[in-house]
């Protein structure tokens, strides 16, 4: 760890006090390492792109992904089972109008935020509304676990510079780097700590149990139903899953080797595609949050729109607007 850092102190002193001096020499390299991990600056273009993606998710979730959340407006209060936070804070039991108001505020705040108009102000409104939305979602007897990273993303975006513009690769921000690092840690925790939960709730026997069989019986698809006849494949998959999840923190420490990091993230996305094909669970908000690993600042929607226009010659009327949802993939192939 002791780096050849030039010390301003006279040599004689370091001879007399080798301990503290050695420490002094180590500290800068240590703090450089810590700063590099937490504050590696990120270009503001990524902030703009992530704000947009977060807004896209908000607008997708309520109808395409979790349509039952808004249906909770019909549920009588007696079925409401408040979580700890709902019991400590004076949060009222959801009723028809609370659910509808939360919904409207959430969607309305997402629009200016995603297009960069007063993104901090609307970001905070969105964060609060989305948090209440999550309480409505999770307070009826079942808590889901896919949204943590996305909530951290919404919070982190509130604290990033307002002046983020698409395609800006020049302006670097440590604050954005810190925020995305936090989201990335949350994303990795979702994997890593879920292995801990498997050991805690399922025991070490989890990997040899029939949990995937059970999952496929409940939610199987044509891609996975056949596996029910080959339980050893499912057991192998369970072991694979444990190994995969325990290894995920590696991605946090590859930030200096971008290609490796992007490859790992691409593998994560493939993992989720496979899981979705097998049991139709997509962890969609998690996937959106995970996009902050990718160099989205390289996405220039105007250039992409021009390219897309050339491809879709037949349909000329596509407005040259914000980038497509395929941003991540475009970037990967151009990286």
């Amino acid at each position, binding site marked *: 760890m002791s780096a050849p850092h030039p010390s301003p102190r006279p040599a004689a002193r370091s001879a007399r006090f080798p301990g503290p001096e050695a420490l002094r020499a180590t500290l800068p390299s240590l703090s450089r390492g810590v700063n590099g991990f*937490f504050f590696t600056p990120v270009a503001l273009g990524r902030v703009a792109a992530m704000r947009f993606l977060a807004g896209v998710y908000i607008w997708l979730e309520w109808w395409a992904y979790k*349509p*039952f*959340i808004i*249906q*909770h*407006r*019909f*549920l*009588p209060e*007696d*079925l409401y*089972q408040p*979580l*700890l*936070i709902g019991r400590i804070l004076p949060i009222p039991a959801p009723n028809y109008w609370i659910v509808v108001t939360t919904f409207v505020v959430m969607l309305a705040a997402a629009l200016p935020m995603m297009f960069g108009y007063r993104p901090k102000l609307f970001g905070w409104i969105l964060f609060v509304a989305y*948090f209440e939305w*999550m*309480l409505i979602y*999770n307070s*009826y*007897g*079942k*808590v*889901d*676990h896919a*949204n*943590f990273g996305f*909530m*951290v993303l919404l919070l982190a975006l509130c604290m990033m510079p307002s002046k983020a513009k698409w395609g800006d690769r020049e302006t670097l921000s440590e*604050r954005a780097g*810190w925020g995305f690092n*936090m989201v990335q*840690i*949350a994303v990795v*925790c979702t*994997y890593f*700590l*879920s292995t*801990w*939960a*498997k050991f*805690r*709730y*399922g*025991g070490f026997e*989890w990997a*040899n*149990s*029939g*949990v995937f*069989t*059970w*999952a496929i*019986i409940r939610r199987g698809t044509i891609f996975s139903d056949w596996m*029910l006849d080959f*339980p050893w494949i*499912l*057991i192998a998959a369970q072991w694979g899953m444990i190994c995969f999840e325990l290894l995920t923190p590696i991605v946090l420490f590859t930030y200096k080797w971008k290609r490796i990091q992007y490859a790992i993230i691409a593998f994560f996305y493939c993992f989720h595609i496979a899981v979705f094909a097998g049991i139709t*669970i997509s962890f969609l908000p998690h996937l959106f949050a995970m996009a902050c690993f990718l160099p989205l600042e390289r996405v220039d929607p105007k250039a992409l729109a021009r390219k897309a226009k050339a491809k879709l010659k037949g349909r000329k009327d596509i407005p040259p607007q914000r980038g497509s949802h395929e941003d991540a993939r475009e970037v990967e192939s151009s990286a």
Partner: protein
Amino acid sequence: MRIGGTLVMLAGLIATSLWGGDDYFPFVPFKMYSFTHEADGWAHITRLELVNAEGERFEIDDEATGLRKAEVEGQLTRFREDPELLALVAEAYGDAHPGEPEIVTVEIRIKSYELVDGIRTGEETDVVEVAWSKEGAA
């Protein structure tokens, strides 16, 4: 300071993963599919079935009332202790589908498949776990 923010988040997650439960939302243990399911035993699927005033019986999905299967399972103990709570499901269904005939019966049914070495034996059961019927209705 900012590093502190990150560490607080991390500490919160780790603490609830170690000792906490779902109640500590948003810091929850990530326990999706974490329960062990024996390769020998029964796999269960819960569903809600309703009967309306015209005698039609049908299964409802998560969106019909907003009460998901997983939530029915999460509150199953409550429903067992007090089947009258199922009247609330009928009420919610009625509110969500104003034009339809009144719901007179709500049943939580559980279908079970037997597994041996992780393979379905073909043995199945389908039982009414909890039921509620409007007074006076059949």
